[in-house]
């Protein structure tokens, strides 16, 4: 009964490959996010979707493309992986917008290592 679940949890891949990370939430939330945590534990938002519509798109390389097929899912596809993409990627969700006082709930993370 995990609230925000991501797969895979661990991913080791070679430079130049294309990979996807999937995320699903069973909380009935309208808003979903992708965050990146680097090796120094610094957390930064990448994307946010509200009701399947992209509302936040930080300065992230075009190689990163989110896709939200429905409100419960937000997948992250990464093309032409580079060494610097190695990080932990967190999916998260909230009932609605943070500006309405909502709380973000995080998944367990996907550890991506590019070799």
């Amino acid at each position, binding site marked *: 009964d995990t609230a925000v679940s991501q797969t895979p949890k661990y991913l080791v891949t070679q430079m130049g490959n294309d990979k996807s990370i999937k995320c699903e939430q069973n909380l009935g939330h309208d808003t979903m996010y992708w965050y990146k945590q680097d090796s120094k*534990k610094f957390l930064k938002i990448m994307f*946010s979707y509200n009701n399947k519509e992209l509302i936040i798109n930080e300065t992230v390389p075009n190689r990163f493309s989110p896709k939200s097929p429905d409100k419960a899912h937000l997948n992250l596809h990464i093309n032409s992986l580079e060494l610097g993409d190695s990080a932990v990627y967190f999916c998260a969700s909230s009932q609605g*917008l*943070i500006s309405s*006082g909502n709380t*973000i709930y*995080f998944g367990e993370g996907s550890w991506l290592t590019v070799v």
Partner: protein
Amino acid sequence: AQSVAQPEDQVNVAEGNPLTVKCTYSVSGNPYLFWYVQYPNRGLQFLLKYITGDNLVKGSYGFEAEFNKSQTSFHLKKPSALVSDSALYFCAVRTTNTDKLIFGTGTRLQVFP
């Protein structure tokens, strides 16, 4: 620029003693402030938030935080630390007129038996 700062990389405290993890912020308007905890190899868990109302906010696992507008601070506190509280703690603030949360750099709390 809007920001949130956690001035201590690490806080060490003996079990049973009170703990404080510091957070200061810089945003215009009324801040929305959050605390999260991250255990090793895990996701972030929500502890508490301040949106409006009482400046003292109580949260999960016995933690509380005090919003101080004049000092632009939102320090996390617990009266009696447990060894199991040892983890990485993040303060976050919503940036003005956006729906983004920006996170501090994290403070590692180490509670010694």
